[in-house]
Each structure stands twice: as structure tokens, then as C-alpha cells.
């Protein structure tokens, strides 16, 4: 998939502002960003549903404007919100959806059986979807996206609303698909998920791509190796920032703690103690993607 200067406007609002990216076959590629960053608009364009306002987009070497049906036949899409047919049964949801892909009834039936097994919904096959729990609906939506055995799977916040067990089950399945050569495009709010699943990712903010790279490379590039978190008693209204600042590459003061971005957390902690600062507690941890994310997109709530 190749995108050049991809832009999407809704009236005067620019949701996606001329972004470019390439996703080679077999890669798993992530879009990270706060709500309203333009991820979902991007997903709708790369799933050949919404037309870009301007820019170039090619998927499987095809132009979505002319070859939309041919592209979508090879895509699986897990939308952000479950869009199941609540009036139909679990099984009928799958059977009908498979038909949209021109699959014969017997093929769909076979695949539906296997996917129900995967989604742990075999016993609920003849229940109305309306009666499923949130997690079950999510699993069914994911199962549905695999009916046409897609070469490219687009997942818009796939694990939102799943419990940890279901999440790990999905991750396992995604690894398996990836090793079968399926390309994955994922948006997520969960940084651990992005670190686990994505070979490469971009961070979006206000319709722009603000960073791009492999998870580890992004951490190296935008954060330090470790973070030292110091917690101060609640009656200390102003932590001794002046004394701490020289010890860290970057320092962030939060209401209840101070984050010191450093190369070696233990070294810095010793230096902190040596300087006569005594926090209530101290925690040394490795930098995560979350640190990168928050640094790039800010800590303020977006919507």
C-alpha cells in the first residue's frame, strides 16, 4: 500500500492533512494517535470505502477509485464500532457477510464454523446477536473480518472492550495471520499492543504524521532509555525541580510525581539522593511507547 499526500476534508474541516506512508506486503503497521487525530478517516480511505479529497493511494497496486470492489474483496476490516446485524443470529451474521464476497454457501458455512470456534462462540451460534455481551460482539466482528481470508487486515482499535484473555487470544491469531503473510494495519490506543504487534508505526496528531518508525527506534529517538519516576509527599507543593533538572535529559512535572528521562535510572536515583532530595518513592523503568506518545501528542485531553 502506498499513500502520497493523502488528504481528507469534511467541509472546511481537514481530518487528514496530506500524509504519506508505504506499507509493504506482510508488514504489520500501526497508526497511533489521540482521538480526533485522523486515524479512522485514514482507515476508511485505506479500506477503499471513503474517497480521499486529494492525494494518491494505491492498494495491491490498484486504484481504490476504479477498482474498489476488487480491492475490498481482498481486505478484512474490523471497524471501531461493532456493526453486527443485531436482529440476525450469530451464525447468520457470518453466513450473510460471506455471501457479500461472492463465496458459495458451502464455503461460507465451513469457514463460519471454523471462525466461530476461533471466536469461542460455537455454542452461541443460533442466538440473536443482540443478546451477546460486548466482548462477544467484538470477537464476532473480528471473526467476520476473516471470512474472505483477507490478504490485508485493517483493524480500527480491535481490542477496545475485550478482556485480557480475549485480547491475548486475538494477538495470537494476529501473529498467526502475520506469519501466513497477511498484512496488518492497526490503530490502537494501547501502547503495549502497538509495541507487541507493530513492525512499524506512525504517530498521528491533528491529521499529520508526527513520527514514524519501529517501536524501539521511536523510543530511542524520542525518549531516553529509562525513566525515573519520583513521588513526593502530597504536602510538598513544589518539588525541588531546580535541583533535579540538571540530573536529567528531560524532566516532566505531574501533579503527583516528577518524571526524569535519563539513560540510567539507578545512577540518577543515587545522584538524586546525593543531592539531598528525598522522594517518598522512586521507580526506575524502561521508556515505553507511551512516553513517546505522550511527548509527541501532549498530555491534555483532546476531546
Amino acid at each position, binding site marked *: 500500500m502506498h499513500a502520497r499526500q493523502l488528504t481528507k476534508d469534511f467541509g472546511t474541516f481537514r481530518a487528514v492533512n496530506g500524509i504519506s506512508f508505504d506499507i509493504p506486503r506482510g508488514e504489520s503497521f500501526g497508526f497511533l494517535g489521540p482521538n480526533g487525530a485522523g486515524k479512522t478517516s485514514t482507515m476508511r480511505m485505506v479500506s477503499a470505502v471513503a474517497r480521499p479529497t486529494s492525494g*494518491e493511494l494505491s492498494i495491491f497496486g490498484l486504484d481504490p477509485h476504479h477498482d474498489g470492489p476488487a480491492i475490498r474483496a481482498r481486505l478484512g476490516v474490523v471497524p471501531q464500532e461493532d456493526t453486527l446485524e443485531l436482529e440476525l443470529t450469530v451464525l447468520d451474521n457470518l453466513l450473510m457477510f460471506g455471501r457479500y464476497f461472492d463465496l458459495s454457501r458451502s464455503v461460507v458455512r465451513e469457514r463460519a464454523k471454523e471462525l466461530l470456534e476461533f471466536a469461542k462462540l460455537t455454542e452461541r451460534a443460533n442466538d440473536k446477536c443482540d443478546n451477546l455481551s460486548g466482548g462477544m460482539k467484538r470477537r464476532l466482528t473480528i471473526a467476520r473480518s476473516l471470512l474472505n481470508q483477507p490478504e490485508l487486515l485493517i483493524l480500527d482499535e480491535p481490542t477496545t472492550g475485550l478482556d485480557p484473555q480475549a485480547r491475548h487470544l486475538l494477538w495470537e491469531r494476529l501473529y498467526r495471520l502475520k506469519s501466513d503473510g497477511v498484512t496488518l494495519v492497526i490503530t490502537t490506543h494501547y501502547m503495549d499492543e502497538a509495541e507487541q504487534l507493530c513492525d512499524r508505526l506512525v504517530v498521528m496528531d491533528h491529521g499529520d504524521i508526527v513520527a514514524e518508525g519501529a517501536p524501539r527506534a521511536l523510543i530511542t529517538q524520542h525518549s531516553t532509555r529509562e525513566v525515573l519516576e519520583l513521588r513526593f509527599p502530597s504536602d510538598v507543593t513544589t518539588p525541588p525541580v531546580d535541583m533535579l533538572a540538571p540530573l536529567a535529559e528531560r524532566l516532566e512535572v505531574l501533579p503527583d510525581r516528577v518524571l526524569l528521562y535519563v539513560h540510567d535510572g539507578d545512577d540518577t536515583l543515587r545522584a538524586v539522593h546525593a543531592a539531598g532530595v528525598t522522594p517518598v518513592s522512586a521507580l526506575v523503568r524502561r521508556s515505553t511507547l507511551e512516553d513517546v506518545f505522550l511527548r509527541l501528542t501532549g498530555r491534555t485531553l483532546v476531546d
Partner: protein
Amino acid sequence: MNSVLRVTPSLSFGSRRSLYILERNIMAYKRQWPVFVSGFFEPLFYLLSLGIGLNSLVGHLDVGGQSVSYAAFVAPGMLATSSMNGGVIDSIYNVFFKLKVSHVYEPVLSTPLDVNDVALGEVWWSLTRGALYATSFIICMALLGDAGSPWVILCLPGAVLTSFAFACVGLAACTYMRSWQDFDTVTLVTLPLFLFSATFFPLSLYPTWLASIVIFSPLYQSATLLRGLSLGSFSWVMLVHVAYLFVMGLVGLSVAARRFQRILAP
């Protein structure tokens, strides 16, 4: 490049894949078959009430030199009305619900189907229902002796054409509805059509000024066409009625498809 292509009017009316929408609707209605039973009884009530009641009051009418019973005169008009209502109500209410409330179409658009297929698929569905109702209506007509001639069988395609015209326009109209309140406007349009389309009495009984408006009414096209078919009195004007209804459907469908695009995949 894309913005140039976007303003080019689309002249495609969906593909073979639109039939999957029909399949989907049949699947969804498997459990709601009582709806169809009411559809079968409705025409019977129409025919019995108007036919028996008014028939005895009115007696016979002269239609193009042919003397026909009032029941035989009014039955094709009722069939036309029933096809109009079926087409409009189906597409407006059901599709509005799917478009704005249950969001049935959104996942469909991530499959090879596109908005044209969705719009056309809903039309197939309306036609299927329309054909079922019309069949039962025509059977009732024949059983009650209200069929003017064996040609009444041609009322089936005529009624389906009527469903097509009104379903397509209904489909386009429903995309402009913002809330359930807007549905009152539907009656505002269909009721005058019902009352002023030579469905109950011949055009010759209208004052001249009104008659010159009535002949442009879409339901007039359908009622006159079906009446001609039922009585077996054919004329070239029928081709005008057919063309009118057909073009009306095509215009409705292409507007609907474009509106679907704006709503579903902006």
C-alpha cells in the same frame, strides 16, 4: 485528480452483487413473515369494501366506450395505489432505519458491494415485495370477478413497474429525512396523489383545469396503465405511461445512490 472524477455523474446502477442485499433482507425477514400476511389481506379488504359498497351505489361506468362495473374500474386503481404505498413505505421506513439507526450498510460497504449495489439491492427487495402483493391482489381481483379481461395478468409487470418508480423515489426521499417527524411529509405527498389520480373515478369527471394537472401525476400513469391492462383495452398511450414510470425510477435511483454515497462514505 480525484476531485475531477468525483463531479462526473455516475451512470452505473449497481451490479449483480446488489442481489446479496435482497438475500440479506430475505434472511432478516425470515422471522417476520406475519408482515407479509397483512400484505395479503390488505388488498382483499380494499376490494371488498370499495367493490361491494360502491359498486352497488355506482353501478356501471363507461370507459373508452366499454361499459364496466365500478368494481372492475376501481380495482386497478387500488392496485396502483397499493403498489405506490408499498414501494414508498418500504423504501422510506425500512431504509431510513437501516441508514440512520441500525447502520446495516456500513459493514456491507467494506465488502465488494458499493453504494450503488446497496441502493439497487433495496429496490430489488421492494420489487419482490411489490410482486408478491400484486400477485395476491390480482388473484383476489379475479376471484371477486373484478378482472376486466384475462389480460389482467399483465397487471403484474405493470404493478411491479409502479413499485419500481415509487420505491426508487422513496429511496431518494428517505435520504433527505432527518428524523421520524419528517415522515409526515410522505403522507402529504402520497395522499393527494391517491385522491387526485383518477383512481376512484374517470379523468373525464374532473374539471378541465384539474384534469390537466392530474394527467401529470405519477399515480395517474400507473392507474391508467393498469386499468387498460386489466380491461384489455390497449393503446399507444400506455407506452408513455411505461416510459414515465421507468424514467421516474431511474432518476430516483441515481439520486438515491449519490445521496447514499454522501451519507455512508463521505
